[in-house]
């Protein structure tokens, strides 16, 4: 029925089956929109956030999702700046994932703030000292960049490319793709870093506060590095997932392994720097503020195990596996390690957002706990559903995996 929209030579299921696939996600999206609507109409009392947990599930997931979506900028950087042409096999998919992750995060942020209609104030009255200003500017610009990077994909659709001006536009755009990639990398470096900087500058939260290198706290650089490390892993995982659902191979195995190796290299560097940073933080920064590291890990369930899990189990371990060429060749090891790497970054974001706020700072504070409400979970599930829907539509009607046709031929 919609065959004319689907690129030649690609196997896609029947329209009806596709719609059946979309249906539950659409329903989930509807539920999520309702949840978000409740928060917008009735106010943020619909969530379980409170004055101590000013940030909750949404911010944690925003940070995680943006870190995972870093595959977009990093793969772009590798393909167009460092000229690793074999990664062209996944760059399109990475861009779509990035677009979905960033647009979803921005939407959730609009629900998260108390007065979304004032969102433009940050552009009108920017505070040059605030990390959040930096984040806002860079993410907005980067979203535009991603949209522009997505445009060629869209324009190469079988039907759309029949419009000559679209084809010309797409061709011209492709010529400057490396500029876009460069800009995207630059912007991403800053906003990924600033997301880390958000917490590293918090002098009032000794658990999160880090000493500065230049004007940026060490978390700035650690966040960029961890995002770059985990980007390829997430692209790897999503590619595998799409292959599983689609039922056929989309990408050559060496490309997957290359992604794994890239992740591994960056991850080991990250783990090393993170370990140094943690030692400095524990032995110098924290005592200078009048706190001791034991105070941070003395509250269940956030014991020292969480630090160990973040750096060793979900950091060092997957890095070592991904650096081993033999292990990379095994699909199971590769995917598990990639999964662990992603989990490690998620855990790192969790620790920075939730644990920071749970910990008491004053002598008469208590350690508090927080569980998200169903409206918060629903809003986030809307983003997941939206992501799946956009990706599914892109997968069906656009060429996300250039190697697919060749692999099919074999």
């Amino acid at each position, binding site marked *: 029925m919609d065959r004319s929209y689907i690129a030649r030579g690609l196997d896609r299921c029947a329209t009806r089956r596709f719609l059946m696939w979309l249906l539950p996600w659409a329903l989930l999206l509807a539920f999520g929109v309702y949840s978000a609507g409740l928060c917008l109409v009735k106010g943020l009392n619909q969530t379980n956030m409170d004055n101590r947990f000013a940030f909750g599930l949404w911010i944690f997931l925003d940070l995680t999702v943006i870190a995972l979506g870093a595959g977009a900028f990093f793969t772009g950087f590798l393909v167009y700046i460092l000229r690793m042409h074999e990664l062209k096999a996944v760059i399109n998919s990475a861009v779509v994932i990035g677009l979905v992750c960033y647009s979803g995060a921005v939407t959730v942020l609009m629900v998260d703030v108390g*007065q979304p*209609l*004032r969102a*433009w*104030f940050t552009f009108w009255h920017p505070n040059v000292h605030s990390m959040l200003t930096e984040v806002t500017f860079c993410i907005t610009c980067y979203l535009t960049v991603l949209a522009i990077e997505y445009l060629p994909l869209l324009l190469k659709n079988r039907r759309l490319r029949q419009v000559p001006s679209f084809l010309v536009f797409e061709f011209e755009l492709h010529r400057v793709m490396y500029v876009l990639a460069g800009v995207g990398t630059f912007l991403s470096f800053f906003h990924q870093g600033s997301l880390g900087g958000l917490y590293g500058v918090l002098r009032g939260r000794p658990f999160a506060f880090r000493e500065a290198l230049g004007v940026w706290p060490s978390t700035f650089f650690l966040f960029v590095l961890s995002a770059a490390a985990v980007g390829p892993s997430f692209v790897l995982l999503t590619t595998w997932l799409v292959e599983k659902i689609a039922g056929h191979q989309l990408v050559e195995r060496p490309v997957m392994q290359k992604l794994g190796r890239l992740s591994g290299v960056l991850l080991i560097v990250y783990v090393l720097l993170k370990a140094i940073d943690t030692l400095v933080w524990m032995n110098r920064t924290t005592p200078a503020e009048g706190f001791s590291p034991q105070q941070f890990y003395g509250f269940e369930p956030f014991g020292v195990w969480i630090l160990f899990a973040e750096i060793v189990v979900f950091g060092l371990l997957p890095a070592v596996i991904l650096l081993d060429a033999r292990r990379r060749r095994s699909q199971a090891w590769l995917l598990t390690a990639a999964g662990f790497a992603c989990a490690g970054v998620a855990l790192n974001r969790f620790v920075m957002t939730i644990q920071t706020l749970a910990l008491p700072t004053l002598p008469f504070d208590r350690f508090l706990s927080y569980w998200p409400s169903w409206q918060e979970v629903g809003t986030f599930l809307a983003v997941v559903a939206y992501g799946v829907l956009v990706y599914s539509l892109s997968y069906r009607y656009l060429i996300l995996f250039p190697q697919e046709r060749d692999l099919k031929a074999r």
Partner: protein
Amino acid sequence: MGLGRRDLLKLMGGGAAGLFLTPVPWRLIDGVAIRTENWPGVPDPPRGEVRTRYTTCTLCPAACGVRARSVVDQPVSLAGVAAHPTSAGVLCAAGLCGHHLPLLPSRVRQPLARRGDKFQPVPIDTVAAAVAAALEDIRNSGSAERVAVLDARPGRTASLIYRRWLGTAPNGIYLLAPSADSSASLGIDIARTGTVLSFGAPVLDGWGTPGRVLEARRSFRLIQVETRQSRTALLADGWLPIRPGTEAALALGIANVLIAEKLYDAAAARSASDFAEYAALAAEFPPQRAAELTGLPAQTIVAAARDFVGHGTAVAVAGSDPGAGPMGDGERIAIAALNVLAGSIGREGGFLPRGEAPRPPGFEEAALAPEHGIADAPDASIRVLIIDDARAAGAWCWSAIERKLARAHIVVALTGSLDGAARHADFVVPAPAYLEEVEDAPAPPDVPAAMFSLAGALLKPPPEAVDGVDFLNRMAGGGAALADVLKERVAAIHAARRGEVFHYTDGARTAVSDVKSAEDLWKALEEGGCWIDRRPAPKQEGRVTILGAAADRVLEAASGRLPADALYPLALVPYGWRGASGGAVSPIMTKLYQESDVETGGDTVELHPDTAQRYGIADRQVAIVQTRCGSCRRRVRVDDAVMPGVIQAEVGPSASGNCRPEALLDACGVAGDGTWRLARASLRRA
């Protein structure tokens, strides 16, 4: 050449781009932002001329001076009056939000009659007629049933009017509300006191006149005797955590030490007619026995006794917690006796005479029904009970009152809220709220002087509001309104030419003898002022009796207030705060009761962790507190500062808003002497 589709698209695109160069989109966005500041839900504060007006707070007996900042005629904030002779510029948390009380949506605005479980509006004449009919019935049948007025704020001019009316009513009896003590003939010279030994009195937390007490704080030592670690206990110089109900035992134990070590005032002892009896009673409570009963180490009791008399004039006060109600006679007498031993009665820094403003003509003591405590009324003897609890500063246990009612009875509540006495009333008469009617306040119970403070009206009452005097006049078919009697009283003060007027407006003082006329005096007081006469009333000559006929009550109180009970092993200790235990409070009190942990709230009880564990209840779980008289549901808060084996129960507003202060007290039950401050209880998880 026509416009093609492409031209149209180009025009639209160009137009859209160009629009951004005009102010239009920016103004629209700006307008949207302004809209976010003015959502329909955000109220607009009223505008108008800002005025400063003065009155006196009548929410509790402290009678603090009030400076009201008003927008046109609506007070928007209240503050104390600096340099006020007794309140020293202070208003407590309840006083600060008193101006909200007339506006509470739940306040009673029209007369109501009970029909089953609900109230229905009726004309005031129906109520007056019902009461008049009952009075007529008593007169005609010649029965011994009584007519009573229960007064939450005795000592006012309105109280005098009630007492005079009761003098003419058949078998009239005038009852003081529990813990109200207008007949206190002695105040405390706190500015020169050396040591205060307080048995459960919330000395630093809503007792006497807070401004006066706190101003003097640095100059006296405070020893707090209390089971609960109250705010006063936390700030006292010493805290003696006794077992519940053992105040009398401790008082006798201390007396024992003072007598044994000859630390008491010999002259004062000589002036007591039954000192030998008292000493014999105290001899039965040596430190060891007092220690066994109170749970304090014997050495602590000895040290406390020495401490009590070791630093200047010593004053012992018996508490009356606003939630737990009054102490029994036994305790009060045992504690008061310590003042005889300390020789602080009639001495500087101790108890000095407190007086009363001159009364208007026709209100001599002989013409008035005498003051009685509730316990003085025989059980089941009251046919008509009129309760004036419009400003009750403390919760009452209804059973203490209920047992005095005859089988067929009428209860009329003159009140502003349906909490409190109105819960059990047959008729509710809407009293004017605080700030709505000119009224007066006598000297606070702790002030050793004669005082008369006028509380000017800052607001208009609702059209159907009826004050107590007005209500009595309706039944009597006429009579002077309260305002007129107040004017007569001011005239009497003027005629006596004693004392001075303190003007709230500028802190000036004028001798009454310099005020030209009674009208001028009235005007000065109504604008904001109080009359105070520090000349001491003549000392009572003659000997004092310490125990009187109450020796056995004292012994009973000291020997064991709270017998062990296998089924109900815990001690239930209610407590409250004067500003909030009495009835409806301002919604801004959520700051204390809901939005912070300053007060845990009337729907919670506090337990020691061991106690909680023994009954299998975790922090914040709901439990049922069961006594022999009833039960109630409460949320448990675990606090290791609570004495093990004790349930501390707050009597006050609750965060959930659906828990009335008195409901817990109904479960406490009333002891033989009319007190409800302790009960045996048990717990189980809900």
